[in-house]
């Protein structure tokens, strides 16, 4: 899984640039499997990608197009997918995108994770988590994937904002 340290992410979107370039040959976040959430009015930036979570509710695919592959990455079998959107709607943190009839899920670049390599602040890290963390606290998140990502980042950012309130500054 790719995790993002919200404390040092600056929201530059380089991870989206390299992801869409590597997977689709062109730059557009709409084609990226990692998405940067920028909650500008509260100063939070964070990249969100598939966490290979404990629940893996995306696997409820009615066509069984999704399965667990190497490094616990979710793998799409393109031949079985009929663009039903179930996996997109199932992810509680909005980490499954959708473009031109196909879901977009982080595939860990088959091993050499490009976004981690280019991240200029090293906010992104790769961790091999076989069991995965639970995303059940986010199961009630409402709305489209973008809104669910925003909700996830807002919750993840609460301790950081608390620290600012207590007087923590960038170098402290």
């Amino acid at each position: 899984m790719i995790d993002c340290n919200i404390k040092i992410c600056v929201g530059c979107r380089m991870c989206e640039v390299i992801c869409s370039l590597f997977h689709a040959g062109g730059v557009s976040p709409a084609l990226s499997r990692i998405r940067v959430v920028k909650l500008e009015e509260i100063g939070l930036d964070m990249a969100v990608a598939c966490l290979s979570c404990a629940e893996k509710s995306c696997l409820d695919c009615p066509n069984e197009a999704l399965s667990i592959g190497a490094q616990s990455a979710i793998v799409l079998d393109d031949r079985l997918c009929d663009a039903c959107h179930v996996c997109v709607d199932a992810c509680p943190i909005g980490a499954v995108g959708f473009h031109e009839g196909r879901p977009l899920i982080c595939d860990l670049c088959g091993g050499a994770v490009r976004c981690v390599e280019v991240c200029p602040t090293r906010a992104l890290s790769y961790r091999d988590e076989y069991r995965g963390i639970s995303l059940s606290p986010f199961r009630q998140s409402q709305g489209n994937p973008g809104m669910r990502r925003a909700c996830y980042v807002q919750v993840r950012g609460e301790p950081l904002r608390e620290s600012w309130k207590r007087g923590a500054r960038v170098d402290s």
Partner: protein
Amino acid sequence: MSIYRGNSLRVDLTHRRIGRANTPENGIGGRTWNSVTLFEELKPGTDPLGPDNVLCIAVGPLTGSALIATCRFIASARSPLTGFLGDSGARGFFAPELRWAGHDQIVLTGASERWVYLWIYDDSVEIRDAAHLVGMDITETTVRLRAELHDPDLQVAAIGPAGENLVRYAIISCNLARAAGRTGMGAVMGSKKLKAVAVRGSKPVRPADPERFRQACAQLQANIEGHQEFEPRRRYGTTRIMDSLARMGVLPAYHYRSTVFDNLDKVNAEALRRDHVVKSKSCYNCNIFCSRYNYTQYSEGEGPEYEAQAAFTVKCGNSDLELAVGVSNAVNRLGLDCISTGEVIAWLMECRHEGVISDADVGGVDLRWGSREALLRLPELIARREGIGGLLAEGTKRAAEHFGPAARRLTAEVKGLELFSADPRGIKGYGLMNAVNSRGGDHYRGEPMIELTGNEALALRRVGYREAAHRLEDRGKGALVNYAEHLGLLSDSITICKNISCCMDAVDFDLAAAAYSGLIGREVSAHQLYEVCSHVSQVERQFNLREGLRPEDDTLPARFLGQPIPDGPAKGTTIDIQKLVDDYYREKGWKS
């Protein structure tokens, strides 16, 4: 033959009609397109705040690509502040989104009767009602649109109360605090009753020659990461300029009355970082991420950059940095240009100091140096045109006419545009840039930064004069400013951050040619790009001459002429602006 023709979206706000066209043939993106469009389509003498003014918002073929920091849009129109060609760029994330939606330029004509906003999702474009957004500041407008459209990733370029109320230095702002700040483009947008442009796009930018394009991107990245200022810029961004200018003796303390500020260590980059900065912030695809997020007990927000930091501290004689940060946040929300706003306040304070005006002349606001009341209240009054704010919203040049010749002598503007936060006498290239460039008193048209480096080899290579590497030398400054203008125009077309391309000298015409060639898959030479920039800079000059510009307008404010710098490390330095302007005219082939 045209190098690249993009898609131009034509929006007639009077008749609520949307059309599509090509961008002008002679241009390479961004400002080149806008300047040509305005020269061809605007009648001379058009009222800047009337329906016949045309507001162009452009990105370029390289915007939103993998090339670092191709993050800016350029807004251009006839300026309500100067009466000449106005344009300004904003960084952040709006520009790449517009490019991903497939639009390279938006040309806004006419004026709506009711308040509207423009909604763009790829090829879908709608003019929508914005009655519910009227009166909202830039943060409120952006947050509201993202919420009601159920899209936290929506990119919004908006005006605040200042733009709605036609303040002549109102901004268009995206990402809450990234502003197209100069020359009043927000007022033009307000005059069209256009509150915001909201955009989402999903179309990828695909280089036609991926390997060549990748090499250009890698070269730029190497230029940036190998630069000696790479780490300090990451740490402090533009705020580190304050200490540099103090060392050079060109700090504009107490509205240019002194270059020495006793409490510098309370308001400089280190103080800001230590006390108020909670994290770094980035514009699109930038490996420097030089912006910072501030958090104080009163407010929070992105910034300030050097200009806001200096304008609300040393220039106004204010040593309370937390106050200045709060003012910067407020000015961003209200939609005011921090440079012009700071100039208005600092100039009033100097007028009071000199006994030219009294507090009673400005509705009883305390105008002593560093006045908390002035710094907090005046931006609000200006943005809402309440009380004295109505006059101050006109800018220092017009306001000075009200207060008389003694107040006029203390202004610091060129062609109506207020100066940046540095004393032009001790940085002669910058002084010349302020005197001659197309938008008026401004340093960012192109940055003649080579004069600050002492790097004679670089100066020789770029402009042909070793002396141009030294800020107090006159020789070579015409060539330096001409080169800096070309590089600035190239940057405004690539839409790359000028802090990188110009201030760090990280982009030249060869690198740009490689990037253009890689992106469009045809050979584009450095010479071709230079020729387009030369041509368009002459078009911009023609535009201004058509609007009544005279050679005698190419000068510095009278207060800097004949008077030496009064104190500090550059004490005694004077500037012979006419000599510098003549040198520049020779470079351009113009007659005095």
